[in-house]
Every structure is written in C-alpha cells, then in structure tokens.
C-alpha cells in the first residue's frame, strides 16, 4: 500500500469531496474534510521523509509507463510544497468549523466543505503530478472550487471579487493550456521529464519561446505577480476567513511551484535565464511588487486587505529569490514559500478570530482589542514580527537567505530592497498594533476572547513561526536540496 501513497495523497481527498456532499449536514461534512486534511498531512510527511531518504519517487498511474501514461513524480521540491499545502490544511480545517458556522448558512456548509476538499485535492494534484496537462486539470479543479469558496463570503462584494478572480484565473489557465499545447506540438509529449529531454532539440524553433511566454504570463497571473495581481486583494478580503487563510497560504505557493517546475525542470534554468532572460522580467517586477504593494498595504483600513497587499509583496520576495537563478536565491525563494505560509496563515487566522467576535475586519473594529482579545492580538503581533523578520522567526531566516543571495551576486540593490520591504512591513503591522493597543474601544459592547477552537490552530501556526525560526536546519536543508535539484547541480 505504501508504494501507492503518491496517488492516494490526491485520491483520498478526491473521494472525500463527494462524501462531504453526501453527508448533507455541517458537522459530518467538516469531519470528512478533517479526515482528508489529516490524511494528506500524514502522507505528505511520509513522502517527504521517503524522498529525503531514497530520492525521487515515480508513480505510474494505471501501470502505464511514462511518457505514455500519467506519472506522479515526487522529488524534494514538490514533497516540500505538498507538505506546505497539507500542513496548512491540517491547521486551517479544525479552525474552519467554528469560523464557517458563523460566516456561512448551515444549508451551504456541506457543499462548502466539498469545494474546500476539492480545492485541497487540486492543489495537491498540481504539486505531485509529473504530467503537464494533468497540471492544468488539477489547476482548474482547485481554481473552480476556489471561486466557489470565495463567493461564500458574507459580504456581497465576495461575489464580484470571485467573478473577477474567475475571469483573471481562467485567462491565466487558458494561457497555460496554450503553452502546454504548443509544447506538445513541438515535442509530442506531455511528461515533464520527457519534455525536459526533448525541448532542447527543438528550442531553436520560434514556437518554443512563444510557449514559454504564454506559460510565463499564465502562471504569473495565477501567482499574482505584479502587475497581474489585481484579482487578489478583493478575493482575499471578502472570502470567508478560513478560506482566506487557506488560499493565501497555499494557492499562490502552488502557483510559484508551477513556475519553478515549468521554468527550471522543463525548460531548464539555462534556457529560461540565458536565452529567454526571464530574470530581466521577473526581477524588476518582483522589486516593484515588494515596494509598491508594501506601500499600498500601509494605506489600507481593512486589515484583511492590508494583509492581502502584503501577500503580493511577499510573493515578490519569492520571485526575487527565484529570479536570482542561483542555488542560494532559489533556496531563499523555496524557503519563503514555507515560511510565508506559516506567517500569513497565522495572521489571517488571527484576523478571522477578530471577524468571529466583532463581525468586522476594519481597523476600527480592532480598537481596544489588545485588552479584550489578548490572546488573539498577541498571536497577531507575534506573527507580524515574523513577517517583519525579527530574529528567531521564520521571516528572519527567509530574509537572511534572500539578502545573502543578493550579496553573493554582488547586487546591493536587491539586498536593500529586501530590507526596505521589511521596514515597510513593520509600518503596516504596527499600524494595526497601535490601533489594537492604544485606541479606546468605540463599539458599545465589549467582546470576549475567541473560543479555543480558533485560538489553538492560530497559536500552532504562530509557534511554528518561532520553532522553524529557531530550528531552521530542516526547512533550509530541504529547500537547499530542492534548489540543487532545480538548478541541476549534483549533490
């Protein structure tokens, strides 16, 4: 059975999705979602440890050997991404029970969890598959369910946000499928490893750069790279709290993984950077994203929107690390995938608890909460410190490697931008902190601390920020090996 873990990782959540729909009652549906998330988490840990011990795992669906059949191929890179997705799911799902009960109609909850589990299955599928068309299919599974999830938000603007995301997301997915089609035209294969071998034979043909460009734009849309980020702030702001926390920590991460997979594994770093000069596009955009989006975050009065802009800036960090096209840079980028999931997850869960009690996430709603919801706000502050990059947090480790990668190449401005970004982060986080701790409450009714069911997952993520900030050798080690795999450097 254990040989089948790669496929079971995806299939069990996929089976749980209809099961959640069939339960037709909120609690059992949640239980099924919990089962799926827990299963995925356990399996992803097993997979990661096996990959680290034995190297790449290849699984052939239906026993059809690649490149004819669909292959699930797990190496250090996607084992790590799978762990991020399932780990976040395992923390957010317990949180979702109370939060979703408050924000969504009881009649819709079973279908909510169906979409939630489907979204998770889709993200896991993108991560494990070794077949480019399969990537597209899973991408659409996760995206369609994400649109549905976002539309469940309590505000009616959730609907327009979801619509906007649907349009942008579909354009992105269509671009990706065009790129895949063009690659298939030239090579006649869809298997990633096979593509990587055959593409160099035909890359003089003009079709390949066109495919490259379509994929670059499509994936950038999905990962909300500036200036293709316009769908993100509204989607994150108006989605239900649990959905925001889940999608913010996983969906864009998986999109970044797609970028890594397509441009490093399939096209190869040499083609992507030396021939196509991807870095000349990605790096300026990443830098602009870091600076302008952090600045935008400062001016937001809705805390979820503030964090959403911050997310775009943080995606800029990942892309910046990747665009350096060095092992250290990639290590930093991959590391930040994980670390950002931890800190943004913690922050969004804390904001979700505020939503749970006060019914609003505007800055005004947070007045005086430092006293009324001490645990929630303490979690917010601690996760915020991680976002700023204070030592002993994961944010610091990310920043350390990013700056190191920049200095290694002798590119001072890169290092400077990273540090300026963290100072801007300090400003927008502190804006919230000041409101929570220094303003007197303007609401009539005092509020109570969030229930334990919300606090516990939130604090697990917050403490993880510090645990992995102090014992980073695990995450850094995996990220480093993943970077070596992607760069094709012998270990």
């Amino acid at each position: 059975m254990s040989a089948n873990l790669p496929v079971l990782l995806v299939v069990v959540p996929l089976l749980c999705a209809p099961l959640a729909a069939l339960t037709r009652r909120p609690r059992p549906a949640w239980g099924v979602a919990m089962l799926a998330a827990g299963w995925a988490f356990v399996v992803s840990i097993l997979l990661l440890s096996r990959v680290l011990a034995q190297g790449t795992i290849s699984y052939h669906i239906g026993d059809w050997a690649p490149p004819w059949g669909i292959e699930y191929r797990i190496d250090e890179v996607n084992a790590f991404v799978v762990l991020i997705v399932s780990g976040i799911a395992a923390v957010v799902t317990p949180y979702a029970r109370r939060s979703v009960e408050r924000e969504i109609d009881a009649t819709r909850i079973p279908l909510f969890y169906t979409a939630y589990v489907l979204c998770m299955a889709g993200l896991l599928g993108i991560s494990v598959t070794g077949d480019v068309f399969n990537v597209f299919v899973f991408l659409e599974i996760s995206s369609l369910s994400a649109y549905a999830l976002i539309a469940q938000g309590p505000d009616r603007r959730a609907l327009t946000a979801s619509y906007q995301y649907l349009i942008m997301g579909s354009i992105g997915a269509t671009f990706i499928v065009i790129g895949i089609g063009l690659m298939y035209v030239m090579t006649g294969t869809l298997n990633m490893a096979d593509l990587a071998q055959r593409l160099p034979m035909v890359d003089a043909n003009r079709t390949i750069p066109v495919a490259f460009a379509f994929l670059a734009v499509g994936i950038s849309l999905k990962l909300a790279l500036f200036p293709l980020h316009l769908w993100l702030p509204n989607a994150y702001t108006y989605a239900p709290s649990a959905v925001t926390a889940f999608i913010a920590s996983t969906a864009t991460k998986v999109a970044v993984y797609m970028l890594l997979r397509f441009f490093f594994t399939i096209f190869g770093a040499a083609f992507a950077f030396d021939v196509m000069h991807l870095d000349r596009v990605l790096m300026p955009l990443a830098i602009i994203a870091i600076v302008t989006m952090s600045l935008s975050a400062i001016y937001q009065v809705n805390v979820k929107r503030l964090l959403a802009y911050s997310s775009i800036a943080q995606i800029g960090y990942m892309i910046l690390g990747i665009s350096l096209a060095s092992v250290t840079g990639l290590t930093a980028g991959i590391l930040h995938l994980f670390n950002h999931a931890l800190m943004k997850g913690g922050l969004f869960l804390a904001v979700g608890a505020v939503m749970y009690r006060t019914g609003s996430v505007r800055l005004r709603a947070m007045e005086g909460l430092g006293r009324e919801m001490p645990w929630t706000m303490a979690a917010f502050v601690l996760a915020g410190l991680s976002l700023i990059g204070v030592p002993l947090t994961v944010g610091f480790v990310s920043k350390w490697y990013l700056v190191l990668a920049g200095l290694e190449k002798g590119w001072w401005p890169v290092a400077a931008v990273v540090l300026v970004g963290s100072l801007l982060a300090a400003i927008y986080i502190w804006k919230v902190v000041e409101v929570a701790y220094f303003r007197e409450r303007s609401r009539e009714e005092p509020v109570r601390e969030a229930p334990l069911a919300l606090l516990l997952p939130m604090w697990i993520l917050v403490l993880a920020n510090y645990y992995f900030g102090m014992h980073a050798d695990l995450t850094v080690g995996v990220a480093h090996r993943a970077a070596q795999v992607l760069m094709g450097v012998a270990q």
Partner: protein
Amino acid sequence: MSPEWTAAVAVALPLLGGLAVLALRRWPNLRESATLVTAVALFFVVASLLGPVRGGARPELVLFEVVPGISLALQVEPLGLLFALVASFLWIITSLYSIGYMRSHHESHQTRFYFFFTVAISAAMGAAFSANLFTLFAFYEVLTLGTYPLVTHHGTDEARRAGRVYLGILLSTSIGFQLLAIIWTWLLAGTVAFRPGGILTGTASAGMLSVLLVLYVFGVGKAAVMPFHRWLPAAMVAPTPVSALLHAVAVVKVGVFTILKIAIYVFGLDLLRTLPATPWLAWAAAATIILASLVAFTKDNLKARLAYSTISQLSYIVLGALLANSMGVIGGGMHIAMHAFGKITLFFVAGAVMVAAHETEISRMHGLGRTMPITFGAFFVASLSIIGVPPAGGLWSKWFLGLGTLEAGQKGLLAMLMLSSLLSLVYLLEVPVKAFFRPVPDGAERAPGIREAPWPMVLALVLTAAATVGLFLYPEPVFDLMTMVVAQ
C-alpha cells in the same frame, strides 16, 4: 552549576521573575518582592561568573543551532561580564526605586510595566553574553521590542508618537544597516562568531571593510550616533525608572557594547586601525559628542537634557572603540560602568523631583535644593562623574580615553573631549547650582522644610551616587576586566 549554564540562567532568571510578576499581579507587595528577589538573585548569579572569568575561563554554551553555522549561543567574556554586572547591579537599585516611583506617581498597568522590565533585562543579559553576531542581533531586537511597551506605557498620543520614532529608528537602522552588515560578514568570513583578534582580517579590501564598518556603526542605532539619535529623547516619555535603567544603562549600553564587541571581536583592533574609514567615524562620534552637548544646553526639560547628555556620553564609548588601541578600548569599556552609575543617579533625581515636587522643567526647579537637599546633593556628585572630575569614577574612563587619543595621535580628538567636558560641566551643574542658590520663582508653591521623595527612591539615588565615588576610589575591578579584554 557550571559556568556555561550560569550564563543561560542569567538570561532565563529575569524571565522567570517576569512570569512570577504576572502570576502575582493581584498582590502588589508580593509582586514587587518577586522583582526584587529576582534582581538580587540575578546579580549574584552574574557575580558568580567573575571568578572563573578572571581565572581565564571563557565558558560557552550553544542553546540551539538555527542553521549550520548560525546558532544562538552564549559565551562569557570579560567585556560582556562587565556590562552584565553593571546592568544587574543597577537593576536591584532600580527595582527599589521603581517601587517608590510607580506607587507615588499612581501609574497604571504596573504589572505590565514590571513584566516588560524583566523582558528587557533578560534581553540585555542575553546581549551581554552573546557568543556571535546573530545572537547579539537577536537579543538586540528583543530588547527593542520588549522596551516598546515601556516607552509607550502611558498610552497617550504623545507616547504613541514617541513609540513610533523609537521603533522606527531602532528597527530601520538595525534591519537596514546592521543586519545587512551581519549577512555580509557571514558571506565574507563564513562565520559570525566573536573571536579575539577578529574574523574579518584578509577577507576583503580595506575599502569594502570600511563600508562594512560604516554600516555597523550607524546600524547600531542604540549607540545613538548622530543622525540616528532621535529615538533616545523620544523615549523619555516613558516612566522615569525606564529612562533611568533602560535608557541610561541597559538599552543604550547594549548599543555601545555592540560596537565595542564588533570592534574588538569582529574586526579586531589591528585591522580596525588600518581601515581608512575608522578616523572619519571617530570624528563623526566626536561631532556627536559636541553637538549633543550643545543641544543639551537648549533643553529646559530635565529628562530631555539628560537624554542629550547620554547621547553625548555614548559617543565617548564609540570613540573609544574607534580609536582602535588598547587605551581607547579600556577607556570605552570603563565608561560603560562609570557613565551608567552617574547617569542613572541623574535620572533618579529627575524622577524624584517629579514625584515630590511635580516639576519637570529646570527653570522651575530654582530653590528646590533647599527642599530636597539629599536629592540635589546626589545630582551634584553624579554630575561630577559625568564631567570627569574627582572625586567621582568618571575621571578614570575619561583619563584612559584621553590616553587613547594620544596613542592614536589624534590631538584634535583630545581637544574635543576636553571641550565636551567643559560643556557638560556647565549644562549639568547648572541644575544643582540653581536649585541650591536661586530664589524660588514666582507662582511656585513650596512647602516649608525638607520634603524629599519617598524613602526607596532617596535610598536608591544615594546608593548610586555613593557608588560613583566608590568607583573613583576602587576602579580596579572594572579596569582589570577591561585589561583582560585587551590582553586577549
């Protein structure tokens, strides 16, 4: 208890005390006893390290490794021990003082106050015993963040604004410059550990290392080298015990201590002397000394004047480090102790006046010396220490700093030191002189007879004032520790 773990205990003890404070929040008397007991215990723990360190031991303890090569590690060496001794000893006295101050001033949220105080002390201990740049930086930032609730203790708009300046400058310099410098050091040397003789020798050109040095000197915002000094006056909105212990001793001394550590253990004095940037930075420090003294003149608010005096005095230590010779370093290190005892007394006096007579402006303190003779007497003695004249300890540190400038062949800097001493003579002694000899201003109501502040406060300031005299008579312990630093 082995010496390695003693250092860890020194870091953990204040935190445990802090938890005790939280647990005892409903019983103020017990809560304050917890603080006092912790403070005394901490001092003895730190003092127990004196023997082994004098015997040449350099106990080291790796708490955990973040990534290979970068670990949170503690190491006891003479300079750090000196700083830890000063800070922990003064914490005892400050605890005593704050009990009187916080109660008679009817401050709110006293539990929070005492708790974050312990956090700050713990971070200061961690910084003192840090074995590498990463550890130092980590505790440096914890100290910044841990003191933020203390600076903004009153929760007013003014406090919030001051808090912004405080965090803004300290975070931007530390993240913007210092962190960059640390990562660069890591890239150049492959290590961030403190080693006698430095780790950077021969790793890059003198020009590059000069840039690195500039990043360090301005990146340590807590050393308040101009133009990154604004946070210190801003922090004066805090309750006086905070200004006294943290912004005259722990926080600012962590800043200059960091610079000394970097000068001695990262660059190494020999390398430092050869860098082209070193003399320029020394002059920048000298400029800070003079400019801050001049600004101090213009301040009528006593705490603000003391703050600028602190900025000026801190640059003495920075200057000592940048002279890059043993006399300068000895003088700088001794000044950590000497200035600490002097300045804390001055702040104690400012707080005592605020509590007893409700005055904060110097011009309103005329004639107050007759009402509070002990307090202003202590101010006078402590001022002498800051100025650097007998019979107070400040003489010795200034003496060695002067020798250092001569050894470095920088007569101009010596002149600067002299000038600054003259300036401080005027702006500090103005306070007790006017308090004793000027008539009471119109409109100020003064109760007849002697009305001192509550006894714990008076006791505290008398003790520290006496200590400055004591350090004049017995400077050897401090001097010995610093010679050990230089001799390595």
